[in-house]
């Protein structure tokens, strides 16, 4: 199975950053780092923007983050409709990278506000799919 395993419903099957899935399987979230200049990328990139070097290594990411903004989706694309309403968020990780991710339903919606501390954790779907969410 390719990268379509990533997400609640994945669209892209082929990518150089496929190894992310093996980290997620082990319950870890990983970023890429350029072996030449050390710049870190999350979501992972296969190619360094600064030095155009494409030899990267994987580093485990700290999931601690602060919420920037969020929404609750009521009207969803067909494959997501059974799960409505659901929460989506944008958060800033301690490393400085930003992450777009679902917010776990265990989080109290009333408490959500920009600045709220959340943790990016690995989540598993019912179709053997893997992703991360904020909880």
């Amino acid at each position: 199975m390719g990268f379509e395993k990533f997400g609640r419903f994945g669209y892209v099957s082929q990518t150089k950053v496929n190894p992310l899935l093996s980290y997620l399987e082990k319950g870890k979230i990983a970023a890429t780092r350029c072996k030449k200049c050390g710049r870190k990328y999350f979501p992972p990139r296969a190619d360094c923007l600064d030095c155009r070097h494409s030899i990267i290594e994987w580093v485990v990411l700290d999931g601690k983050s602060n919420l920037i903004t969020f929404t609750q989706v009521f009207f969803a694309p067909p494959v997501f409709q059974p799960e409505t309403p659901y929460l989506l968020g944008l958060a800033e990780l301690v490393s400085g990278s930003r992450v777009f991710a679902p917010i776990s339903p265990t989080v109290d919606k009333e408490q959500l506000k920009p600045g709220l501390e959340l943790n990016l954790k690995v989540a598993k779907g019912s179709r053997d799919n893997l992703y991360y969410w904020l909880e």
Partner: protein
Amino acid sequence: MGRIGIIGVGHTKFGKRSDASLRELAFEAYSSALDDADMDSSKIDGSVVCSATHYDKQRSPAGVVAEYLGLNPQPTFNVEAACASSAVGLRTGWALVSSKLHDVMAVVGVQKMTELSSEEIQELMGRAGDVMWESPFGTTMPAYYAMYATAHMAKYGTTEEQMALVTVKNRKYGSKNPNAMFQKPITTEEVLKSRPVSAPLKLFDCCANADGAACLIIANAEKAKKLTDRPVWVAGLGLASSPMSLAGRTGPLTSFDVTKNAAKAAYQMAGVGPNDVDVAEVHDSFSITEILNYEDLGFAKPGSGTRLLEKGETELGGKIPVNIDGGLISKGHPVGATGASQLFALTRQLRGEAGSTQVDGAKLGLAQNIGGIGMYSAVTILRA
């Protein structure tokens, strides 16, 4: 660099056009633009066909549109920039005419959306974002703008009632536009009570998918003066891009950097500032978008866009009338046609032909058109 003039404009009725195909919509707009310019097809030496082609059944629609308009064998260009396709199309035509490769061109924005099933539309909507890192979580077009709304509300105390004022204002003017999809005014209460789409946005905070076309005939200064005695001049063009992924953008997400960058370029090229604008068309794909646009274009300070609405400054008779043709919220949003539709409205304003919605003495008009979830923004300044 010579001036480029808009010498003719055309517009179809927007909405659910089950009577017409894509090529026929394009023809309606093109033909009325030729009538408006009082000319025939013989002087048109190229076409720019603007459409977000993923909505069209026809692949590479410039091919069939150029054929149906009778514009073979002249060159044709297919321009796609999602919801900003025809603003980018004008920039494309401007560059082609400025380069002297062409003298007189037709810029045709067209979209046929309602023949897709709602399943197909929703599936497409689900892939409007970064398909690798964001769409797999169930994103939608409204969800992205809702996240800007949440951030603006948290930072500045903007309320859902204030956002509803955008819809109320635009629907009021939409009722005076015979081309609009919705021609009935609406109340704040009706907006607030409409069903949630992506919180805090509700159904009537959102524009609707539609079919339609709009056309601009452009020409170099020499031809423009020869062909018409009322050209409207392209004074400023600004276009910028931003990361498509929301996670790739910086700042608190209470404004669109992409619009600020496009506005800066357009103001600079035209040698004007926000206070010089007499009438504006801004991209109200969602109510919150119009408020952010006021701020990003410099009509209001950050966080104070809602005050313009409350004081009626963006109404007819206010300091800077905005979307006096009803905006996307009333007209509907046939994606590829929207940018040209905005420029159609401005051209008529600057020629003093806007009838009951005429802004007195309008000399300088500004149109702003966002592409997709904010990865493109175009600002166009026209001068009478």
